[in-house]
């Protein structure tokens, strides 16, 4: 994937390029606002734009790009002032990052923007290699059916319907277990453990979130 980086600080730009290259992104770097204005933003999967640039203000570049494409734009700002960030978001920026930041923080934010969306098709939800058929009450991993008990299915469906979001254990107990038949947190943990095993290669999709509950993770592309 191609990423356009517009940043005037050479050291920072080189670090970002190195970090993104490790993640197998191809980066084109522009250090000047004037050049950035003449750049065609459409071929890029994402644009990283610093607001404080020589010659042309970052907000003007943002405005110009937004008029030409819907490419996700991540703003870099060294100012804490909310006004400029809110203005950037209002002009169509998708996210912002305040300096100082860690290289991983930048790649995480870029990854979140470029993450493959959850596909919903034919009454089902596709999450990576996992397909949850909400109509037929079945689940497939790499196209192969997996056999689930009623409680396991309810659990998987509840997590799949909110894929990417953590659901508290209490909410899962209420949504999937019968309180009159030993519907406790401990029972839930047992069901989760069995479901994880049955998911096989997709078992790492089902994450335990310490202090919260569980989440069906959407895998990185």
């Amino acid at each position: 994937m191609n990423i356009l980086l517009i940043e005037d600080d050479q050291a920072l730009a080189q670090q970002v390029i190195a970090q993104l290259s490790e993640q197998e992104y191809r980066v084109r770097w522009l250090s000047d606002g004037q050049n950035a204005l003449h750049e065609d933003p459409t071929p890029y999967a994402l644009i990283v734009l610093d607001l404080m640039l020589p010659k042309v203000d970052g907000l003007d570049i943002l405005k110009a790009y937004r008029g030409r494409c819907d490419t996700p734009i991540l703003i870099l700002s060294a100012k804490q002032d909310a006004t400029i960030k809110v203005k950037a978001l209002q002009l169509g920026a998708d996210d912002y990052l305040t300096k100082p930041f860690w290289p991983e923080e930048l790649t995480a934010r870029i990854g979140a923007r470029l993450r493959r969306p959850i596909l919903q098709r034919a009454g089902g939800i596709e999450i990576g290699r996992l397909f949850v058929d909400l109509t037929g009450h079945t689940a497939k991993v790499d196209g192969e059916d997996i056999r689930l008990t009623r409680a396991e299915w309810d659990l998987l469906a509840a997590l799949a319907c909110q894929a990417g979001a953590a659901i508290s254990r209490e909410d899962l107990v209420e949504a999937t277990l019968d309180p009159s038949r030993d519907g406790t947190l401990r029972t839930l943990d047992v069901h989760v453990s069995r479901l994880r095993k049955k998911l096989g290669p997709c078992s790492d999709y089902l994450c335990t979130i310490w202090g919260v509950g569980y989440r069906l993770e959407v895998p990185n592309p």
Partner: protein
Amino acid sequence: MKLRQRMLGTLVLLAIPMIAGANWTRYLFEWRELERGLLSFAEIEMIERNGLERCEANPSNFPLPPRDQPEHLRRRRERRPPPPAAAPQGSTPRLRLATYRSDFQSDNNRTPPFPADLRADLEKGGETSSVLMGKDDSVFALGWRTPWHDGPAAIILVTTPHTPELFRIPVLAAVSALAAALLATVWFAMGPLIGRTRKLAHAVQRNEEQGSFKDIPEEGSDELTDLAHAFNSSGASLRKAMDTATQKEAALRSFVENTAHDVGTPLTVLQGYLARMAKETNGDKTVLQAMEEAQYIGAMLANLSTVARLEDMDTQLRQDRVDLKALCLRVMARHQTIAAEKEITLEHGLPHGEAFVLGEMTLLEQALSNLLHNAVRHGETGGHATLHLQLGPSSEFSLRVLDDGPGIDADTLKHLTERRWRSEEARRRHPNGRGLGLSIAEDVAERHGFALRLAKSEAGGLEVTITGELAPS
């Protein structure tokens, strides 16, 4: 008490003794006039009408029959309204004269005994004395020690049913009307004065409400004008002092903001180098410590800007729709690197639906960042720190930051919730101190109308919960 009420009360308090005093003076004057009239009558009767000779010639048949009042007394009486009970209207009060020897005994058997009060006064050496006597003090009596002290007319008693009146209603009414007229005059004369005073008060009040020192109108050329002028002069001085302070404050805020900006980029580069060194040295402890310090400096920079913003009381907080979920993800990403280096598992839980609040994005982000920074900074290797956003059944949200670190004892916990970020202790950098960041978080929450609660987490660490209302959709 209002000015008019005070003036009214003062005038009433003054008018009552004034009216009473005027009435008493009139009463004494009437008394003296009666005394003088009766004495004149006795002198005329005894000297000019030969009363003395007739008395000495035939003392047992003296006194004289009742006579009309002397002319000058009658004229005075006609000018006054008749006394209500002294005599029927139209009749003329009668004067009676009686003579006594120097021992206060009369030669005439029909003469009444000499009044004891008068006798006592005359025996003390007085020439004349007068008194009210009879039933209900209805008779005015004058005793006169004459120069003919060896004869039967050594003492003369003159009586009249006409008495001085203690309360004369027409006079009282006239004086009261005068006092009322005076009151009314003062009442209306005070009007413009009170109006100007009110205008001054309103102008001062308006300045207070608007937090400004605008000049107030200086009308007229009296003491009120002087007061307005003094207020304006003092306002000008204050305005100047405030302008200077505001300029200094703005310069300081600008300096802090610019410093944070200028340091932001090189610090990012430094963090990049440190992250690479950590990878290359496979998590060297020294590099890890350097990374922690870099993270701390970054947090301090952000906190400095946040404090400068919170201290800027001139401007209201922004009321933007802030996406809490996006904010949580940004804060999570910010601490992911340092948490990973410290082998602390950073987790988050976000609700399925939208979660927007009204507020200032960067302040809320820094408040939450401080809480997570504390959780990671004080966490132990292999520990956890979690950020959990939950939505309530109606429009409330709950944002928890919890860890399984060493936690805080109950006493410190209580102290932390009481402490404000302005305190000196909170400004100190302490290896285990959570003061400044936590205090800023509490301040930000409070300024947004949210509640911040500290508690011990189930795993023994600290659990900080922010609760509040979501923005209407």
